[in-house]
């Protein structure tokens, strides 16, 4: 155990007036106080005359150049390829993994060409208004069907628009992701 009793000195900050007579203490206090105040004013004054230190990013104007980090979690998306196919086979692992039930997968049974009954997704409901972007559904997905999107501008005037259906109408499962 190391006990530090002295403050880690950073650029002479502590103001301690030694007890050396009333007048000396009185005027000492005034001078140290004024100098400590002037130090602070020096800093703000420095920034006032150095506008190049401003770090503001002007959001709606910089939308063209604004890039999110590659791991940024903005929303859950179900990518479709050009043939309107996705990789989700409706195993519902994500629904189970989701801690607050923001994923609802409605499945249906399809009969394929060889006469077998197969589980397929009917609607992939995603409650954006409840999602906490914890990434557990992405981790849980065995066929890597869902990924996190980069979009973050989701503001709406109407709450019902936040409930999203991720599979596009008429979409199918990719061949390689069927089981």
């Amino acid at each position, binding site marked *: 155990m190391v006990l530090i009793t002295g403050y880690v000195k950073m650029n002479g900050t502590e103001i301690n007036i030694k007890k050396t007579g009333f007048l000396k203490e009185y005027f000492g206090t005034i001078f140290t106080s004024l100098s400590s*105040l002037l130090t602070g004013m020096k800093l*703000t004054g420095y*920034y006032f005359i150095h506008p190049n230190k401003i770090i503001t990013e002007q959001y709606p104007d910089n939308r063209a150049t604004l890039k999110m980090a590659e791991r940024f979690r903005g929303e859950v998306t179900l990518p479709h390829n050009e043939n309107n196919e996705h990789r989700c086979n409706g195993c519902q692992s994500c629904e189970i993994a989701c801690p607050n039930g923001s994923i609802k997968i409605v499945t249906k049974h399809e009969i394929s060409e060889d006469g077998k009954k197969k589980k397929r997704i009917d609607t992939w409901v995603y409650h954006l208004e409840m999602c906490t972007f914890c990434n557990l559904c992405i981790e849980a997905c065995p066929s890597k069907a869902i990924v996190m999107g980069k979009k973050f501008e989701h503001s709406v005037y109407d709450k019902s628009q936040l409930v999203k259906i991720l599979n596009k109408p008429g979409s199918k499962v990719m061949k390689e992701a069927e089981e």
Partner: protein
Amino acid sequence: MEKLHLLFVFSFSWLASHLNMWLRTGIGNSFLLLVTEMLIAGISLLAFLVILCFFLGYMERKVAAFMEIRLGPNRVGPKGSLQIVADTVKLLFKEGLTPDGSDKFLFNLAPFVVVVTSMLAIAPLAFARDFQLWDVNIGIFYVTSISSMAVIGILMAGWSSSNKYSLIGAMRSGAQIVSYELSIGLSLISIVILSGSLRLSDIIQSQANGWWIFKGHIPVLISFIIFIIASTAEINRAPFDLTEAEQELTGGFHTEYAGMKFAMFLLSEYINLFIVSAIAATIFLGGWMPFHIGNLTGFNHAMDYIPSSLWFFGKTFFIIFIIMWFRWTFPRLRIDQLLNLEWKYLLPISMGNTLLVSAMAVFGWYL
């Protein structure tokens, strides 16, 4: 030569005298003339104050922003200059509610009292050479007595809101303004002693050969510093904004005020800021007097060509900037520390300082 001077320098005094002459030819009755002149002066003063408050609000936000490494308002109007206009129009059209349980008469009266008292104090100010609304012979006395009236409005607001936070804020302001009034008075008295007059125009004239802050050596510098500190406290600005103290009292005396009534408090805050800065500029920095250095006649002549109104406003805005600088740098004091500062430091020092200045005046130790 005089004409040439007018070409270069737009003079307020020229404007005032011509207006006076023009009115004199139109209106024979001297009473009517006085009323018309007062009306014109009042309306132009109001317009000036509103524009001034727009400008000060914008300036404050930009100063704050630049000290805080950010941009500040820049999307409403060119470079955000219409931001305060938008705020004002919004406050105009906002519901100005009076809370139940409040003392309705006092509640609605308080903002007007505050604004009117702060506007009254502008009367004896000299904005430019020979351009003064009311050159009263007790100018400084008038200003100090009017400015201490503001506390009545604040007390009224705090009491009538029937909100405990407002009440605490109002009580704080009472203690604060009454005590800081003393050191303001004493620091002003030091200049009165030196110049020998309470009339503001005389004080400005006494600085024709040098501003008091340069002529008066260290004692005047001390009273200047005391004046700046005490007047910051007097107008309730940070670090002495205990009456509002947003983090402690959620707004202090104006917690319950909304809409235009709240805007009045903002207005009076900026007018007060302007007034104390203008007083400081007049008393210590020579008002509209240009900057002269001893015998450098060329330099002095060049300074003379800068309009006197520019000198006045330049000095005033310099002090306004310093007070804003205080606000955006320092944390707030506690109420007992605030009173300590006044009674233990500012008041004894300014008393001693007054003695020194009297000695200076008696022995003529100034330039």
